[in-house]
């Protein structure tokens, strides 16, 4: 006798039902323009992924409220947001999915590890991609005409930080810690090169990983070397506790971080230890940007506190749409040349691309924590002309 499993049949039917809910997406018609957004929406970096999603969504909603007409058709933008779980395999599947859905452009991904393999798929399909936060230099070294980023890459930022530490903060002995991710390691290596070139001595190089919460062991090693400055290449969720643990161990050195540490979250997590911490962020301070303050207010009203990259995601979306407006078309083949020629003010800073797709001459601003808040210290780099443009 054969028993046909009811459970098995039931499960297969359920799966089939689910799949019928999908199927081929119809091409953007009737004025609906789909724009893709990819970031990790689940997992340990989901707070950053959702932040990107919110930033892009704010831009889309604002443009829809404006009501644009492109190529004689009234357009409505639709954000297709997908979760890539910070996993490169999933990233490529999601990229193909967006290509199938015939999106007109993609904002993403968040991590370099997923952005790079996905960029091949977007390139093959001719879809422009603007990443708000992928900083691995390799992304723009592949020769893809449609790959852009609106954030300075690690090389630029690390160099600025290294020089600033030695020349402006005047430190001679530096200890460097990084979290062994593509971002943290890339930033720390560039910082080390620049700091050495400026004449500082690197007294210690320690490492952690991006899941760790306890840094006392490596900090104790660092303490023994008696540095003037501790530089951390990594994110705020670890930088904050790290700064606090530094103080509790009695380490008096200054703490310097990159854009990963320059956030409200860092101050919350570091507590009293945040006072005096310096960190950099590509672009110009929100307050100095036209529309920057109101962006922050609008974002806070709708989505709460900005994590880190929401302004860049907002800029990525706006830049894509801006190029479409200039070309008066949502066809990637038509607006891609306009995208490459972008020169506009975003909320994070002036946006223009070099021939590789990197941000051209991006200024980098250094901030310091005073009285529990970030204050802009000074802006390095970037051309004055670009800042005064528009």
């Amino acid at each position: 006798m054969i028993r046909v499993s009811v459970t098995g049949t039931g499960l297969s039917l359920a799966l089939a039902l689910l799949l019928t809910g999908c199927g081929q997406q119809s091409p953007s018609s009737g004025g609906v323009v789909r724009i893709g957004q990819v970031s990790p929406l689940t997992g340990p970096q989901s707070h950053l992924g959702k932040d990107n999603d919110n930033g892009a969504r704010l831009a889309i909603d604002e443009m829809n409220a404006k009501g644009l007409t492109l190529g004689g058709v009234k357009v409505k933008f639709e954000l297709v947001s997908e979760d890539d779980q910070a996993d490169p395999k999933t990233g490529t599947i999601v990229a193909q999915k967006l290509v199938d859905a015939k999106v007109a452009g993609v904002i993403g991904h968040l991590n370099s590890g997923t952005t790079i393999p996905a960029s091949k798929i977007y390139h093959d399909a001719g879809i422009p991609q603007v990443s708000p936060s992928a900083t691995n230099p390799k992304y723009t070294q592949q020769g893809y005409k449609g790959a852009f980023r609106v954030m300075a890459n690690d090389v630029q930022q690390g160099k600025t930080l290294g020089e600033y530490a030695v020349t402006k903060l005047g430190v001679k002995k530096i200890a460097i810690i990084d979290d062994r991710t593509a971002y943290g390691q890339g930033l720390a290596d560039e910082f080390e090169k620049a700091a050495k070139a400026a004449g500082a001595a690197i007294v210690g190089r320690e490492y952690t990983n991006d899941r760790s919460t306890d840094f006392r062991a490596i900090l104790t090693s660092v303490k023994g070397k008696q540095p003037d400055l501790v530089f951390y290449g990594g994110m705020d969720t670890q930088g904050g506790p790290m700064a606090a643990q530094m103080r509790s161990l009695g380490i008096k050195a200054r703490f310097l971080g990159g854009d990963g540490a320059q956030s409200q979250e860092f101050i919350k997590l570091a507590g009293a230890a945040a006072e005096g911490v310096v960190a950099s962020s590509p672009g110009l301070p929100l307050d100095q940007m036209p529309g920057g303050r109101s962006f922050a207010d609008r974002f806070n009203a709708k989505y709460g506190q900005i994590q880190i990259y929401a302004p860049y995601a907002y800029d990525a979306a706006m830049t894509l749409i801006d190029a479409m407006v200039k070309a008066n078309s949502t066809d990637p083949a038509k607006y891609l040349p306009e995208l490459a020629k972008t020169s506009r003010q975003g909320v994070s800073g002036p946006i223009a691309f070099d021939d590789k797709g990197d941000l051209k001459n991006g200024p980098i601003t250094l901030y310091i924590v005073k009285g529990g808040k970030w204050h802009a210290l000074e802006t390095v780099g970037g051309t004055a002309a670009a800042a005064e443009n528009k």
Partner: protein
Amino acid sequence: MIYISDRWQHWRRDPRVAWAVYIALAALLIVLPFVTDWALGRSWVRIAAFVLLYIMLALGLNIVVGYAGLLDLGYVAFFAVGAYFYALLASPHFGLHLPFWLLLPLGSAVTCICGVLLGAPTLRLRGDYLAIVTLGFGEIIRIFLNNLDAPVNITNGPQGVNLIDPIRVGDFSLAQTQSFLGFTFPAVYNYYYLFLLLTLAVVFVSLRLEDSRIGRAWVAIREDEVAAAAMGINTRNVKLLAFAMGASFGGVAGGLFAGFQGFVSPESFTIIESIMILCMVVLGGMGHIPGVILGAVLLVALPEALRYLGPLQQALFGRVLADPADLRLLVFGLALILVMLLRPSGLWPSTVRRRELAAGAGESGHA
């Protein structure tokens, strides 16, 4: 339960019917990319290719966990070694561009040796101690891959290896759209067919192993190691062979993955991957090849299918009640629990197992 008559039994054992089924299955697998692309979109062809990769991995782990009963929580290490072996020798990283028909077998052999090396310290360990050590090895390999960029840059560290050569034979590259007999085959299709061929090879090897002396030795060790040793089975060699064979499948899958994706980084080889592959084996039906294949198909396809919870809610309720990104993994976890509660020996266990389980439950009664 639905009972079907004895005529079905007769029919089931008829070799002509078996052949007909195989031919139908073969035909289905051959046209699958075209049908899937047309019905669901090209991303699902890509998912199908990943399904095949994971079937290879699951069958490899099946040898270690299903046949030999060795709980391996670090299987992804072999996948990683295979992938990096291919990546380092067929990319601009060292400037070497060795051909895939050399690298895949070599990678498999290297991974095989790794399997033996990783298995050697675990021979005296049972159950969860073995699990922790294999988990440790999985992590150790990943950490080395992530950090061997200084003082000598071997693996390029967390930046990963990019621009890996696609799989090609001379001028015929799988990464380019090819035409044949009037049909166009985009890159994804080409890889799908290559993976299909190799998956069938892996299935074939698994089947032969299952029915061989080694296979029976593995089962003996799984059921009662002391008795097996008493029967004259060299438990040490047999266990090492299990690790070696399982690892070799992982190595092949790894090499294919590197060529397919064009980019490898240590982030792809986390503990969660090992755990997922284990879930595929157990959920499908440990030790039973069709079950393991089913487990792999479901656990790769389900999270992707759950992305459509948005449109599904739209269709059912007229609007989206809960953000699909929030629900996706939650529903996946619930599905795992539900399946194991309803079918504890797996969705498609071997009949032998099912009989054992029923006998065991009948004897000891319920707690």
